[in-house]
Every structure is written in C-alpha cells, then in structure tokens.
C-alpha cells in the first residue's frame, strides 16, 4: 500500500485509514475494471436484436418490470460497481441523445473491453490501445458516412419512416402489432414536426397508458387526453365547439399572500362578509361565462358552492389538472393560461372542436378527450394493453420509435441494420489498420474484431451459428462490395437488408461507436482503484 519513508527511515502513511481501504493498481486495476464492464455488457448481450430476450427486474419495493430496453434495464439495476455505473451512464447518454440503440452501445463497449484485455495480455500499453481505438473509431464513423444513403420522404409519403420505426419496434414485445404502432409513432412525429427547421419537439407528444383492452386498441389522438373527469357528475359529458378557459387560480375566495386578519366584531360586518363571499363565487363564474367560455379547466380545486354554481350555469369544468397537461392543452387549443379571473378575455380562450368524457371497463375510470383542437400541434398516443408491465414496455418502445422518427427528420441519412453497418465498418477498419505504423495497428485490428461482436450477438440470439453466419456475410460483403448484407434474424431467407427493409439512422450508429469508444478509453486509462472496503 501507499507507504513511504522519510529521511530517517520512519514510515508514514499517505492514505488515511489505509488499512480499511482496498487498492488495485496497474494491470490488475485495468483487468478488474474490464471484467466489471464486460459483466454489464454480458447481461445486455442477450437482449440485442429482434429475437433478443427480456429481463425481469424486481425493484426495491417488489415491483416488477419486464423489458429489453437497455437503458431501462441498466437504470433499474442496483449497480454498485463504479465501472458498471459508467456503463449505465453510457447507455443513458445514448438514450438522451438518440433514444435508440441503448443495448447496442453497451454490447459494443463490452466487446471493445474484451478485445482490450487481449491486447493487454500481449503487453500493449493501455494508452496505446486507447489511441488505436480512437483512430479506428474515426475510420468507422467516416466509413459509415460513406455507406449511408439519403432517404427520401415527405409528409404524404411517410412509408420509409414507418419501415425504420418498424425495425426499432421489432425487437420489443410489441412486435405483434409493430406495423400499427410504427404508423402511430410516425404520424405523431409528423404532426408535431417542423419540417422547415427540421426540428421535432417530442414534448408535444404525450404518451398516456391505461390498463385494459388490447394492444390493438392503441390509438393516436389528435388532441389531448386528460386522466380527469368533470368536476360535477351531472355536467354534460360531451361539448362541441368548446371554448376553453384555462385557469391557474382556484374557484375559491382569494387568499392574499400577505398575512392578514379580517376581524369581525359586529353583526353588520358578519353579514357583509357573508354577502361578499357569495358574491365572489358569483363573480368568478360570471366572468367565465361572460367571456364566452363553455369549458373551464382549472389547475386547482373548487369549492362545493362554486362547483354547483358552475353546474347550475351550465359551465362544465375540470379540476386538478396537472401543470404539464395544462400547458399541453394551452398549446393544442391555442389558448392562454390565465392566472387571474380579472385577466380573462375572449381572446385568451382555447378552442377545441370536441371535448368528451369516455369511460373504460367495469371500474370507474373516465378520461377526457380534447380533440379537433385549433392548433393540432399537440398529439397524444393512448396505449391500451393487458397489464401494467405491458403498457410500460409499450411506452418505452413507442418512445424509441418516436426518437428514431425524429432523428430521421433531423438527418435523412440511414445505414442498413441487422449488423450490416457493423460488418462494413469492421471490414473498413481492418483494411485501414495496415496503413498505421506502430503498435496502434493491433488496437485498430482489435477494434475491427469488436465491431464483429454486434452481428455475432445478433446471430447468436436468433439461434444461428454465430461464427459461420458472420463469416458468410462478411465474405459476401467483401466479394460483392455491397454494404447491405446483414444477419437474417427473422429467417426471411435473404441477407440483403434493403429487401428486408431494416434501417437504422446514421447518427444513431455513429453515436453508438463514438460513445462506446469514449467510455472504453476512459476505463482503459484508469490504473489505480482505491475504494473503501466495507465488506
């Protein structure tokens, strides 16, 4: 351990309480870290691809999640090891940036680490390996750019987008109705997309789920869905041509922020106060009525009296609507959120063609649909499914599909999936390796081999002979010089990914390679691990 001697030969301690710490250094540290990283990758490896398996995660409160979304698995795993946490971060950043390929990036990083271990055994210095990886990743990214294809679509012809989303969904449990879900996702994205600026604000797409029904009942609503019902059971359940007042002030007597007291000392005062109170409610309702609102949506609760008055004046109202939903409603209906009754004007009302309440199942579950909004920018995807886990998983899958569609709108380039891109890169990197003098050459070759591991895992998960399949595809690519051949996971009978319509976005793939390389480099550079050993 860290023990030093001063000039008199007396030992002194550098690390505090060092006997309570464990320390790993040099090659041991690297190997331990690599092993930890690999262990995480190993968990995810079997989830890759359309035939990938799911993981069942039991949370600290006994709640069960079943998923094959890499980011979700890693997020919910109780990871303690620091390096393993790095891998979790890696998957998360891929999720934030791209939204898809979260499993792939971890598998890729795991493969890179595995290769690095071999190079370490050969005696190559970790820094050289890291540098070699860096060079190789640059080659791979450039090559991806070269083999990528532009991809034409517009609002009327969105079929290609649907195809890409279907690739993403096919690896999830929802692949039974991937076609309809992919269409929903694409339509939703197109509805909110700003094609001029090539920008998509995914916040405008609300994904709402409700247990019950079938997955096939999942629908896209051009409008907002609010999990609330009318404040009074006898209010009308359907309003056409609604003018919506969106309020953030409660239907209650005002509560000034400053501390005050109203002292009552005479009977007259008591009477006037009483009258005033009644007037408050009357005025509030009257104001809403005056501006021509036919529906009131409020962030707060109502007093009984106010509630009845509203009902009485035939003014349906919804209470306790969350802030996020309120904003969405405001965007969709083109209304303004009004914080005071005094500021209510007709221009600030939102407009919607149809507002209706719909009930589900045998239990008392009602939801409010706000449709045909003035500004159709906000949409809702309403997911139905057999159980809660199914819905959660569908939500995650839809999110992935939405991200993919968004990425395509941002950048039209695609590469072919099914491992085709990885194989092509592997070939390119392998070829490039020979040009580099120095030790890095070996690291670059290792990188090429690591790239192979993604198609290998795909083949393995699909029940094919991994090495055989991979080598067959590789030689085919090399022979015909076409980068579209990938692993035939679904047993369609062809290796040509163009025919199978398996695409992935270019930026997604590039990001995967870059992120994985970065993390691996970081892990390789660690040569000393000092940790508290409580155990």
């Amino acid at each position, binding site marked *: 351990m860290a023990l030093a001697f001063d000039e008199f030969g007396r030992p002194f301690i550098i690390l505090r309480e060092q006997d309570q710490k464990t320390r790993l250094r040099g090659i041991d540290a690297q190997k331990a870290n690599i092993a930890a990283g690999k262990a995480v990758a190993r968990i995810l490896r079997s989830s890759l691809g359309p035939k990938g*398996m799911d993981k069942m995660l039991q949370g600290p409160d006994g709640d069960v999640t079943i998923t094959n979304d890499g980011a979700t698995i890693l997020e919910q795993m109780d990871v303690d090891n620091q390096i393993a946490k790095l891998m979790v971060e890696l998957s998360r950043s891929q999720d934030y940036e791209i939204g898809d390929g979260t499993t792939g990036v971890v598998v890729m990083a795991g493969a890179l680490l595995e290769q690095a271990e071999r190079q370490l055994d050969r005696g190559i210095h970790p820094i050289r390996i890291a540098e070699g990886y860096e060079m190789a990743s640059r080659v791979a990214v450039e090559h991806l750019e070269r083999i990528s294809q532009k991809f034409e679509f517009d609002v009327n012809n969105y079929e290609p987008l649907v195809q890409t989303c279907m690739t993403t969904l096919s690896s999830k449990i929802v692949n039974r109705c991937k076609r309809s879900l992919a269409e929903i996702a694409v339509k939703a994205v197109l509805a909110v997309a700003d094609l001029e600026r090539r920008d998509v604000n995914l916040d405008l797409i609300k994904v709402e789920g409700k247990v019950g029904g079938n997955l096939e009942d999942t629908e896209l609503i051009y409008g907002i869905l609010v999990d609330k019902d009318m404040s009074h059971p*006898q209010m009308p359940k359907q309003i056409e041509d609604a003018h919506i007042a969106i309020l953030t002030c409660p239907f209650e*007597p005002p509560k000034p922020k400053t501390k005050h007291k109203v002292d009552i000392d005479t009977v007259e005062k008591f009477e006037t106060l009483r009258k005033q109170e009644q007037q408050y*409610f009357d005025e509030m309702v009257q104001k809403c009525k005056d501006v021509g609102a036919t529906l009131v949506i409020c962030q707060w609760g109502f007093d009984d009296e106010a509630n009845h008055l509203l009902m009485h004046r035939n003014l349906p109202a919804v209470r306790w609507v969350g802030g996020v939903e309120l904003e969405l409603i405001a965007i969709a209906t083109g209304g303004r959120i009004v914080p005071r009754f005094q500021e209510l004007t007709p221009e600030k009302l939102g407009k919607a063609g149809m507002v209706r309440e719909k009930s589900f199942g*045998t239990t008392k579950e009602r939801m409010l649909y706000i449709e045909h909004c003035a500004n159709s920018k906000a949409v809702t995807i309403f997911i139905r499914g057999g159980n809660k886990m199914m819905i959660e998983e569908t939500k995650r899958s839809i999110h992935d599909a939405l991200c993919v569609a968004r990425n395509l709108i941002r950048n039209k380039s695609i590469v072919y999936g099914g491992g085709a891109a990885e194989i092509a890169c592997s070939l390119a990197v392998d070829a490039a390796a020979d040009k580099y003098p120095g030790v890095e050459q070996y690291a670059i070759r290792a990188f090429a081999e690591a790239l192979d591991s993604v198609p290998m895992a795909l083949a393995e998960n699909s029940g094919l002979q991994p090495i055989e399949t991979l080598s067959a595809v590789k030689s085919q690519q090399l022979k015909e010089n076409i980068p579209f051949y990938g692993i035939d996971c679904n047993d369609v009978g062809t290796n040509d990914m163009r025919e199978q319509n398996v695409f992935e976005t270019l930026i997604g793939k590039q990001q995967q390679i870059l992120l994985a390389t970065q993390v691996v480099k970081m892990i390789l550079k660690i040569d000393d691990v000092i940790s508290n050993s409580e155990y």
Partner: protein
Amino acid sequence: MAPPPTDLVDQLRHEIDEEAPLPAIVLPPASGSLSNSAASVVNTVEEEEGDNETDEEASDDDSDKGPTFIRSLGAWSKPLHFTPPPTLPEPATPRFGVTEMLQKKRIGSEIEIKNHPTETQGSPKIYFVHFYYSTTSLDTSSSPFQRRISDLGDLRHRAALSRLPILSMPIDKIFKDDASEEKGERARMASFIGAMAVADLVKSTLGPKGMDKILQSTGRGHSVTVTNDGATILKSLHIDNPAAKVLVDISKVQDDEVGDGTTSVVVLAGELLREAEKLVTSKIHPMTIIAGYRMAAECARDALLKRVIDNKENAEKFRSDLMKIAMTTLCSKILSQDKEHFAEMAVDAVFRLKGSTNLEAIQIIKKPGGSLRDSFLDEGFILDKKIGIGQPKRIENAKILVANTAMDTDKVKIYGARVRVDSMTKVAQIEGAEKEKMKDKVNKILAHGINCFVNRQLIYNFPEELFADAGVLAIEHADFEGIERLGLVTGGEIASTFDNPESVKLGHCKLIEEIMIGEDKLIHFSGVEMGQACSIVLRGASHHVLDEAERSLHDALCVLSQTVNDSRVLLGGGWPEMVMAKEVDELARKTAGKKSHAIEAFSRALVAIPTTIADNAGLDSAELVAQLRAEHHTEGCNAGIDVISGAVGDMEERGIYEAFKVKQAVLLSATEAAEMILRVDEIITCAPRRREDRM
C-alpha cells in the same frame, strides 16, 4: 452457519493468491463429468423433508471434507464464456401439492390456505443450494462462505444438481449488497415454477364444482375471507416471485375489464407455461414458442368468432341468453343453489342500466339474517340511513332536493376571517346572526317547495329542528356515492347554493318510507323517475356468505353489462376450449417448422381447462375429454362437459352460455402473459428497500 474450518480458508486463499488474477467468484462449471468435484461446492442434499436444519448440517459436513476445486477446470480464470447446457434435468418442474408448498414456503406470507381438496402426493421435492466465494470476503470477513438459496424460498432443487447450469459470478460486486441476479435457464425455471405454482393454487377453484379457499389476513383481527374468486385470492397473496406477480396482475386486469374469468386466465397462462417448459426442455427456442403461440392465439380467436351466436335483434332471446350467462357465471359460486333467482336479479338490474357499464348505479346492500333466497332486487333506491326524529316517516309524491352543503356551522370561507369581540352582548349578537344565517339558509332550501332534503354533510340539530317544524324529511350524512346515485335515480341535481329555487332541478319519487330489513331501518325511495339505479338487498347467514355473495353477484353484473354492449355469446362448459383446440390442432398440422410444436402445445393447454373442470368435479377427466374431442370432430357440435350429470352433453340444451368478450379476454391476456414470462432470460432483483427502524 458456522464459519468453515480455518484450514479450508487458508487453502482457498492459497489457491486464489496463486491463481486468480482478478477477484472472481467462481464455481466449477457444472457439466456431467465434473459432477464429483462440483459436489463439494454445490451439495446435493438427499433428504425426505425440506428441513432447513438437515440441509445445513449436510452442507457443513461437506465443507469439512475440504474443497476440491480442480484448477485445470479453467473455471477460475475464464468464467465468462461458459454456456450452460441447454437441457434441464427431468422432471424439470416440481409439481407441488399446494398445501404442502404453502406451508413450507409460504408464497403467501400473509395467507395460509387451510384446506385443499386435491393434494398431490409423492411429488419430488427439489432444492437449489448455491454457494459462491468472493476473494475479497476471504480477506476481510470471518465467514467467507456466502450462501445463497435461490430466491424461490425453500423451493429448492434436489435432483441432479450437477447437471444444472450454475453460473459463476466473475466480479465480486456489480450489484449492491442484497441485489441478486438469475440467469438463463435458472431464471426461466424460477419464473416457470413461480407462475405455475400460482396457477396451481387457483386451479382447484375452477368450474362449477370448484372448491373455495379460506384466506386469513395477518393484519389485526386475522379477518377471514372465504372465496373462490380467482382475483380475490390472488390479490390477497403476498408474492415474492416476479413471474407470479405477472399472473396476479393479469387476473386483476381481467377483473377490472370484464369482471369474470379471473381464474381461467391464470390457469390458462399456467398451462401455456407448463407446455412451453416442455418445449424448452426439448430445445426449442422461447422465441419460436412465442411465434407459435401467437399464431395459435390468432387462430383460436378466429375459431371462436366463427361460432359466436348473436341475438341482439331478438330482444326476448337476448334476455334468455343473458339469463343463461348469468346462471353459468353464478353456478361456480356460492349462489349456485339459487342461481335462477340471482340470475334474474342480475339481468333485471343490468337491463335497467340501459347499456351503460356504470355498475355504481347498482347498489348492493348486505344485511345479515335470513337466507340467501330472501335477497331481492328493489326497483327503487334504498338508503342505509335513519329518518330524523319528529319528521314524517312516510311521504307520498316526494320532491327531493339533493344537496352537498354544510349544514353545521356555516363557516366564513374568506381567508383569515375571525371573530373578535369585546363584550358578551356582542357574542350574543353574533350568535344570533349566525343562527339567522342558518335560518335563512333553511328557508331558502324550503323555498324550493320540497318535502325531502338529503345532504351529504352533517345536519346539526338546529337546522334539523327547523326542517322538522316545516314537515320536511331531512336526511344527513349520506355518503358521496349514495348522493350521486340518489341524483341518478330521482333525476335531481346535486345542489350547493340555494339562491335560485326556480332553476334547480328537483328529484321526484312516488313514495318515501322507512322499511325494516332484518333489524335495521332503512329509507326506501320507490316510484322513482329515472329507473337507472336500483338496489339489490342481499340476505344471508353470515358476513362471509354475504361478502362472497356480493363478489359473485358483482362478477355476474360485470359480465352481463359487458355482454349488453357486445352481445356475442358462446356456449360454455369447456365447449369454446374444445372448438379452439380443434382449430389450433389443424393449424399445427398445416404449419411447417418448429412453430408447429408450439401450436400443438397451445391446443394441449386449451384442453387442460375442460380437464381441470372435470377433475375438480371428481369426474374421470381423461375419459370425458377424449369423448369430447371425438364429439367435436363432427362439424357444428355443441358438446361440452356437463358437470351435474357427469357426462358429455349438449351445451345448448343445458343452457350453458358464456360471453364472448370474457373468453376472448381470457385467451388474449393469458397468451400475452405467457409470452412476457417466456421472453425473460434474466431476473435481476434489487435489494429490498430497508425500513427505517422506528425506535
């Protein structure tokens, strides 16, 4: 467990120092030829009873012999690429007698099932014992042995452990302290076993001759529930196995969505998994099984769709269909003796709803006493309240104001208001004003020209007295649902302000009177305007009977209200399953590839439902099902199992019908759940959240 002898630790440390460069917890790979060496680590305990103590003794004995890790196994250095042998030892599934299982392992830690009719005996007990080492713990802790028993609790595997894939942990710590990870075959097995255990648990309640379960809660009072409603049983179990939770979940959803078939869905899912497990054992990939199951489910649904009966147009026939459905649903419940009576009640009640599925409009009042046969449906509305003293006990042509307003002291709602006075006289004045205010309010209410006033909140003595003076019946503290229902029945609106008497809609009814049921006085509203709501008064010997009767009736009502919307019906008594099984079988023959095995298995799983029904009725299931299958070979056959006569019979004649919606939901959710569990190849369990010590 006692720390192992020091020489063992030394020896281990020695080995590890020498060999393992990275901290690895490793078991020798378990393949057949190495079983001898593996036996020292993984000890195969042969014993009669699942007794923990013997178990531990045995393992201690083993560790005394010293470790015989064979380094040449290579397991120390390269544990990562060890692929487990794909097959499980036969028999892979332990079939437990439920009682036995529960007593031992207590899946339901809260509930113990007291009596069980079908106790499987002589089933093999299987144990998992799983150790691993950690090098760091060797250095620091006194007890290097960490011992893990598979999280199925005491469900352990005794049989041929040496062939079980036991995976090694390559790194000492990836997960937090108590988190654990199950992989591959073990994970699949854990989820299969868990799911099947749950399915077997409710299996015996299936069908008209299904048995009940007693559920005793561990909470205060140890309250007891007797039921054979699958959803209720599963809801009250505390289950640790994640796969079992999936099944509980689908049962819950089935309850919410269609109300009935909660047991069938679990049993079918369990059977699907049992079949799937056999297929996995014969080396068919789960994904192939899933693909086959999906095709089969689709085909089965189509088969049902082809055979549905829809009598929507013919009102009379439709009603008789509903009657039959209600009777079929009820015959498996406690109400089976009086099923006709109750079926009639349920159908009447549902017809009054006029197509809405809002079951809240049907009020069920439980009053112990009398017999189940004395239960009745009341056209009007019954409110479980007493009439105030001095107020009329009987009102004809009542005008009712339904209100939600404070009738105690009417608070000033303006924030920060308070009364501050400086003399006694003023207090009196204010009090007077307050009284005046209340009087005003009462007068305003009276101005509506009513003779009955129902309020959700309390009515204080003073206003009550005022109401009594005016000859108005005032009912306080009706609960919120009661108020809503009353609004529905009488057609009045729920009022909170009383300034515009002319525009408030009042409720009307012909007669309000106080009635006695058993010993309790209730208020009865009859001759109401809107006939939507109604009340069902259940009578019965005890609370348990009543509770169960309510659940059964609720099931029937749910099914009926759903059927009113989707009027397609099917025959019952195992008929739909046989129809589906036949079609699915045919599909299996036509399908090429490995999927066809899965499709065939699906059909077998479907047949398991009539088998279970027959078994539960104490009939010769094998004989009956074979007969049924033969009958179904002819086109348009209506044969099903008639449990009452114990033979195969024509279901149409017997009048056994089921709702299409229920069957479809059972089929689809069971397939979905089986699929979810099949897709899992790894279970990661987080450390349970620690409760803070409240000291």
